[in-house]
């Protein structure tokens, strides 16, 4: 129970109280952070730049791996593993299936996209510049309490999977339930949009018929006269 109370105190944390303290990364941690961050950004770029769609999906998987590594660096190992299991294990593999099974002509789609590339680049650069101007001044101001990272629970006292479970099913039960309904809607939607009532003229596999076949019903022995054919 003590752990829960401590956690409650964290939940009520407000900027300006003394718990918050900026996390500075340095040394080996910093080196790995930059390694993973650069590879993540680079492979994310390759996802949209690669010519072969299968390569795009593989770069996407690389991006997920690096993002998971970044989670590990901040001590969120549960999120890191979930990212691997859900995104790499399920979503990316599904993408790969879709890309390989659907014969989409990505080259002609890219040609269309190139027409809009100049205007897209202009809008993107303006937006990025504005973001830099706005955020560069404010985000790196370590003096402001709102910008400091929230303290992470001490992993020795409380495992972060347990800490997540603690609040996910209690304080955040409401959001958890809505997320469940959102998934239900996704499921209904997928079925509504793809499942068609049986149409006439479509041949389907009939297991019982197949199993019930015997040599007598399946094979016809015909005595064929030479040179006549059947």
């Amino acid at each position, binding site marked *: 129970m003590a752990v829960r109370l401590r956690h409650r105190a964290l939940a009520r944390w407000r900027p300006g109280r003394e718990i918050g303290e900026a996390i500075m990364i340095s040394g080996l941690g910093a080196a790995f952070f930059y390694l993973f961050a650069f590879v993540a950004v680079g492979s994310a770029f390759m996802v949209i730049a690669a010519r072969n769609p299968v390569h795009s999906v593989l770069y996407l998987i690389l991006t997920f791996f690096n993002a998971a590594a970044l989670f590990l660096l901040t001590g969120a190992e549960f999120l890191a593993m979930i990212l691997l299991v859900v995104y790499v294990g399920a979503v990316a593999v599904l993408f790969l299936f879709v890309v390989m099974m659907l014969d989409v002509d990505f080259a002609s789609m890219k040609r269309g996209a190139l027409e809009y590339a100049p205007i897209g680049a202009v809008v993107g650069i303006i937006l990025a510049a504005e973001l830099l101007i706005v*955020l560069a*001044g404010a985000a790196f101001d370590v003096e402001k309490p709102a910008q400091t990272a929230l303290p992470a629970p001490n992993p020795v006292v409380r495992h972060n999977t347990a800490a997540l479970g603690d609040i996910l099913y209690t304080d955040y039960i409401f959001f958890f339930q809505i997320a469940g309904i959102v998934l239900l809607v996704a499921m209904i939607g997928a079925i509504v949009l793809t499942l068609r009532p049986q149409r006439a003229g479509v041949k389907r596999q009939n297991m019982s018929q197949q199993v019930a076949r015997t040599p007598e019903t399946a094979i016809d022995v015909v005595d064929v006269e030479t040179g006549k054919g059947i």
Partner: protein
Amino acid sequence: MSADFLSQGLALSIPELILAAGAMVLLMVGVFVPADRANATVTGLAVALLIAALGWMLFIGGRGEAFAGAFVQDGFAVFMKALTLIGSVVALAMSVGFARAEKFDRFEFPVLIVLATLGMLLMVSANSLLTLYMGLELQSLALYVVAAINRDSVRSTEAGLKYFVLGALSSGMMLYGISLIYGFTGHVGFAEIAAALTGGERSIGVLFGLVFLIAGLAFKISAVPFHMWTPDVYEGAPTPVTAFFAAAPKMAAMAMFVRVVMDAFAPVTADWRQIVVFIAIASMLLGAFAAIGQRNIKRLMAYSSIGHMGYALVGLAAGTLVGVKGVMLYMAIYLVMTLGTFAFILAMRRKDEGNVENIDDLAGLSATNPVMATVLTIMMFSLAGIPPLAGFWAKWYVFLAAIEAGLYPLAIIGVLASVVGAYYYLRIIKLMWFDESVGGFLPVAAELRLVMGVSGLFVLGYVLIGGPIAATAEAAARTLF
């Protein structure tokens, strides 16, 4: 977690629980009822569910906050939720005849409408950015599917895909804004954000996040410059779906817009007011001018709705009690007018052509179906804002709020835009009463007759019954201040 936390939360959210559990039961009902009766049965039960939720909320349910401030059920929420539920019920009831005639009879349709309505209720009750986003996604996901539900029609599929891609983009922008707001204030709860913004100077990062958040909200109410999807989706989706889109989601999204800016960002009113003023002016002007050239009545109603969202935002721009009351009344009156008009559009059936959608098909309607022509005339006069019909009073409330807040240019532009907009509403009336007849419509189904009759009476009689409605809205608006 104490038992109070859960029991109080569950007690307050019973209308939502009715819809959530009911939707799951309906799915099972749909599976076990024979296929030819499934749509009608499930639609009937869905209407009953929505009415049960409405009744519980109005007469039994309590008021207050729950789930650690994530969910709020106050007077404002109850008023806007009632509008949302009424919109869903009427749109669903109107879909029955169309479903039968056009072989559009999937029982999943009413279930998805119930789930979308659940998302809308959560949006209206959102008291933190998390609830807001979850409710919005629940609603949007169901709406994308519903827009594309007629898979054999290329236009319906295109409408669904377009809505999905643009909706996902707007959700992305909104989430980015939310992350900035969280990063710079340290909170997602509306009350906490407001507290963090009072006092100390506001940082430019929060405003940046607010701009992205407003962009996402403006997309959901289809205000300019985030309106592009509206005409295509309105035209492409099956007509009962369009009627639903025009009614319920607009109520919820506008309620969410009002609560976000009036609750969480009240301390920085001057900053968001200029954005809302711009969106309002652009929407009113585009709604007035772009509708002039439209020949398809569903497309015309799309531009009309863009314009009307602009007028509603005029009240929000004022940022006062009178302004919020104006927005609420505007939405209430708009709901009735839009449902009445869509009941008429659904009734535009000919024997050999099925449902027709062109304005020219209305020519000379006064000779063949005088009652229908009269109802649409009342609706069009009201949408144009001719006194003493309801539409006039709606505009009167919001312009009054704008003038009290000193926003004279906004009010003047709004009045001018409504004069321009009157042209296309009046053109329809001219077509019906003064042009050569091109043939009448089939007899109108009972439920459509009822909706047309009630909305026509409401619009005509608003002068008499407007007082108590305005008083209710004012009492409800007070809970935000």
